[in-house]
């Protein structure tokens, strides 16, 4: 493994003394060995990475995806841990949290161990999420203490959020023993049942059953109440509605240990995308109104929304090539997550804040070791060019999934590579 020299990269790390400056960075043996405005290195074995005229290189602490579904075991035709982690690397992610909605579900130590074993030797580090409830059935608590000891980073019932208030409270209390975090997708199924898109004049106009924003905001409200009562830690992911942003902003001001994340597609798209009943845009929670989208962007800008989570949810062709109601949910967009976010935000949110949402925030929230772009720090970095344009082609994607609706689109932001101890 030869050392790597990055020439004249712009350092994007507010903790680094070189933040915002173009510097030379020397990486070897899994660490940043040296960093300076101008490094003179005379070792012939060093491979050099240099900015081209077309694209300025930027270096950030590695991105973290805290909500990705690789479908293994059980649905390997849609994605495997290996293909998923390769997609993650292309998306600039050095760390990925894996959803427990597999078959069998990850609700005990063997599931956690299996996922970690399958990810061995990969450049991207995999952090399994354990289920909150046994079998993800929302009835009885799963063995979260044991899964934590085996390496589960946090707990979630993933796509099947906890409906019972009683169970949710017990789960929050239970993980308090070890400062664990529950990750919840806020959906009240009794309000969402049968719905296919955001409920509004547009759903009426399209003759589609709707899901009101209250299906989300009520669950956010409930979970905040339970969080306050349990004094535990909660991360709400995939928020889509302005009302949720307001509730979370208020709860954070109160000092609750509450954090949240948003998907790239909720930042970029609205329910307007459903005009032609295209199942590519069937996601849960649904794409909402432009006012909701603007509220999400404002929430990301002011830090109410801490992180970006891709909600990477691979489907094969068969699952999406169906009438809307029967089609599978989700998008598999991990590879182009940064591009979609940059496209969505334009100049409205500073790049520093975006990178914080992709890397530093999730590391802090979930107690991962912080990565700094400074001498001696372990290398888990993402090398990218935010201003360069690139056309995404599904046929050359690493993900096995069919459901990336941005095929052929020209998007801002190129991820060149991740740099981790195993990525050379």
């Amino acid at each position, binding site marked *: 493994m030869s050392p790597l020299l990055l020439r004249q990269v712009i350092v994007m790390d507010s903790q680094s003394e070189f933040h915002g400056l173009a510097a030379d960075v020397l990486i070897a043996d899994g660490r940043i060995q040296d960093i300076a405005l101008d490094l003179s290195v005379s070792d012939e074995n060093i491979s050099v990475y240099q900015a081209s005229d077309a694209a300025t290189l930027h270096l950030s602490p590695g991105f973290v995806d805290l909500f990705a579904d690789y479908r293994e075991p059980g649905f390997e035709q849609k994605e495997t841990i290996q293909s998923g982690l390769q997609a993650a690397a292309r998306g600039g992610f050095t760390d990925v949290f894996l959803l427990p909605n597999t078959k069998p579900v990850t609700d005990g130590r063997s599931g956690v161990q299996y996922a970690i074993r399958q990810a061995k030797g990969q450049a991207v580090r995999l952090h399994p999420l354990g289920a909150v409830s046994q079998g993800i059935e929302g009835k009885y608590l799963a063995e979260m203490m044991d899964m934590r000891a085996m390496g589960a980073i946090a707990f979630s019932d993933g796509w099947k959020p906890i409906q019972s208030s009683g169970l949710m409270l017990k789960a929050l209390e239970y993980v308090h023993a070890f400062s664990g975090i529950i990750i919840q997708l806020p959906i009240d199924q009794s309000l969402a049942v049968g719905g296919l898109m955001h409920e*509004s*004049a547009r*759903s009426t106009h399209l003759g589609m059953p709707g899901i009101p924003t209250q299906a989300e905001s009520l669950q956010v409200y409930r979970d905040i109440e339970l969080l306050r009562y349990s004094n535990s830690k909660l991360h709400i992911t995939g928020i889509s509605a302005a009302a949720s942003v307001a509730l979370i902003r208020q709860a954070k001001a109160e000092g609750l240990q509450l954090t949240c994340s948003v998907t790239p597609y909720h930042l970029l798209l609205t329910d307007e995308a459903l005009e*032609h*009943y295209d199942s590519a845009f069937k996601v849960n929670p649904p794409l909402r109104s432009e006012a909701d989208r603007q509220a999400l962007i404002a929430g990301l800008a002011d830090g109410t929304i801490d992180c970006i989570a891709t909600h990477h949810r691979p489907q094969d062709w068969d699952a999406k090539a169906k009438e809307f109601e029967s089609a599978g949910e989700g998008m598999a967009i991990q590879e182009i997550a940064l591009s979609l976010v940059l496209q969505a935000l334009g100049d409205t949110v500073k790049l520093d804040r975006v990178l914080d949402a992709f890397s530093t925030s999730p590391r802090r929230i979930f107690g991962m070791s912080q990565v700094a772009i400074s001498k001696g720090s372990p290398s888990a970095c993402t090398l990218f060019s935010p201003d360069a344009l690139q056309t995404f082609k599904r046929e050359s994607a690493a993900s096995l999934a069919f459901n990336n609706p941005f095929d052929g689109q020209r998007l801002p932001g190129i991820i060149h590579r991740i740099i981790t101890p195993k990525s050379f």
Partner: protein
Amino acid sequence: MALSVKHLLGIRELSLDDIHTIFQAADRFKEVLQQPIKKVPALRDTTIANIFFENSTRTRISFELAQKRLSADVVNFSASGSSVSKGETLIDTVHNILAMKVDMVVMRHSSSGAPWFLARHTDAAIINAGDGTNEHPTQALLDAFSMREKLGDLKGRRVAIIGDIMHSRVALSNIYCLGKLGAELMVCGPPTLIPKGIEEMGVRVEYDVRKALQWCEVANVLRIQLERQNKPLFSTLREYALYYGINRDMMQSLEQEVIIMHPGPINRGVELASDVADSSSSIILDQVQNGVAIRMAVVYLLSGTTQA
């Protein structure tokens, strides 16, 4: 004479000219239907598949008659007992039928937007015979056609649509069609059966059926879907019949005569009492008769676009 669309997916996509074109053709086919020989040789070279993934009697028979009176070859397919119940996907079912050289597909499906999906994945002309809670375009065309026979130009005419608006594809297609023709529209039903934001489509909302009847010139009364009662949308059929059912006493208390329409099948004694359904105010059977002429017009006009 041609339509601006290749498929009839919904009224939403039709222009006002398209609607008038269909009416003009239907006028001529209605004359044909009065003749001793009720058949024209227009579509001798055309094969049409009627694919019904949901139960239907009148719509399917109406389409089939319309196609046969145009001399088209017709195959019928219904989902019960077919390969669909063995897990075949919609796209496979339709590809299999089209592989047998079918030119046109008439489809009913329980999922909103299903004909859009089909139009994206096949080359045949698609006619939507009802998709989920979205549209039932030929029903709306025959409803407007029947109103036009009675009232002439529908501009400024007041039409109330009464019943389960939320789950009714007839309601939505009627709103689009009558709106394009310039009628004034009202929907009436319990609030749980009125979809959100419908006012933004230029429609009045009324919860009191008596007030709706006093306001309107035409009442299009919709079937209350007994089969949707697994969701708590209203209390009981008894209460619905008491507070939204239209009976003769109610009709006689009105200052002006109101034309009564219903897309069928009627739940007699629920949304409509028999003494109203069978009265001289009712044009329900005219609707059924006009349905064949309208469907002949639609099938004829769309077959031309595929042959060209």
